[in-house]
């Protein structure tokens, strides 16, 4: 039987399209437009050609912030993903304690970014913070306002504290979807704990894990509030990540042109990485479906 094709329902999407154009697409186009111009205020613009891109691509400041950003995202992913899997594997599967664990795990996710930043800003301080004071008392020098390593450790531990539960919850959801029959079969075959993880749990978790990695990558790559509240990008420029540098440039120095060019390159990196993750994810789904 031939189905009649009628695409008129697409018109129902029109209001959303207009809204998104107004709130996202046109502002993005404006950024592209500003990236090729210079302004000294008063809304007077001058054509600057490719000079901002040229300056930025040759700018050590931008590359340093970029490497810092890559390092930050890589480190937090390297910690949060395995840790989240371990936590998920050890959470109770059902009953009262499963619910308690779930609630406890979701607590950090409910705290607003700037509050997390403030918590850690105070917590890690040497004079009044519990962590900083204790470390100082047992003889470890820890001052995130002056020491490069202390600053990095603070923002990384903070991110791990804030977001590991997201990975754990997603991995847990993946684990819950595995039917008991798989585990019974493994038991009959006398599979080791590692074999169960490697051939049953891990492949079943992979789909949600990719989502978790994508979310964590994007969020950490765009992170602003938490490190800004804790270190303000310091000491020096030690924790000036891409977004902190971008805001300094756009709002601190009011260099709209360079900041717009910066934004475009930032956006391109996120777009490329997200596309890779998305492609891997959809291909995994297709393989599962076959």
């Amino acid at each position: 039987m031939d189905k009649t094709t009628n695409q008129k329902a697409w018109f129902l999407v029109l209001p959303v399209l207009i809204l998104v154009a107004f709130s996202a697409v046109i502002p993005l186009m404006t950024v592209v437009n500003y990236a090729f111009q210079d302004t000294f205020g008063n809304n007077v613009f001058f054509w600057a050609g490719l000079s901002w891109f040229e300056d930025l691509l040759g700018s050590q400041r931008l590359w340093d912030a970029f490497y810092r950003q890559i390092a930050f995202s890589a480190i937090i992913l390297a910690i949060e993903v395995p840790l989240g899997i371990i936590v998920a594997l050890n959470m109770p599967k059902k009953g009262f304690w499963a619910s308690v664990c779930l609630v406890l795990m979701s607590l950090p996710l409910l705290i607003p970014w700037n509050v997390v930043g403030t918590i850690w800003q105070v917590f890690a301080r040497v004079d009044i913070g519990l962590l900083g004071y204790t470390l100082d008392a047992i003889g470890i020098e820890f001052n995130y306002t002056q020491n490069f390593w202390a600053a990095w450790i603070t923002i990384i531990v903070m991110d791990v504290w804030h977001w590991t539960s997201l990975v754990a919850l997603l991995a847990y959801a993946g684990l819950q979807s595995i039917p008991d029959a798989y585990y019974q079969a493994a038991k009959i075959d006398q599979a080791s704990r590692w074999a169960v993880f490697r051939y049953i749990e891990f492949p079943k978790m992979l789909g949600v894990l990719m989502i978790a990695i994508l979310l964590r990558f994007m969020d950490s790559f765009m992170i602003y509030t938490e490190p800004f509240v804790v270190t303000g990008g310091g000491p020096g420029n030690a924790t000036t990540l891409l977004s902190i540098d971008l805001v300094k440039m756009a709002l601190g120095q009011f260099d709209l042109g360079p900041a717009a060019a910066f934004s475009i390159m930032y956006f391109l990196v996120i777009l490329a990485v997200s596309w890779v993750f998305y492609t891997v994810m959809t291909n995994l789904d297709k393989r599962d479906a076959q």
Partner: protein
Amino acid sequence: MAWMAWTLPTAIFFVVIASLLVIFTVLAIRFPETPRRGILGIDTTRGDRLFITLLGSAYINLAWLGLALGPQPYALIACLVYAAAVFRFV
């Protein structure tokens, strides 16, 4: 629209992108296709290949500028070669 400081080059850029999208939409309606698998080992449709081409072209242009390989318009030739390769092999 003067207050948004639009310029002719940006307008041309977006018109080109928009027309590409329109052309590919029309193509997809007139000549429906099934995804195929190329050297990347992933299923791609014409639209996917357009996306890969545009994103890659942005990077080619930035690399051209950053490595000072020559006048910028020549980067577009590299992009065209890249586009042909993507549509042929990916």
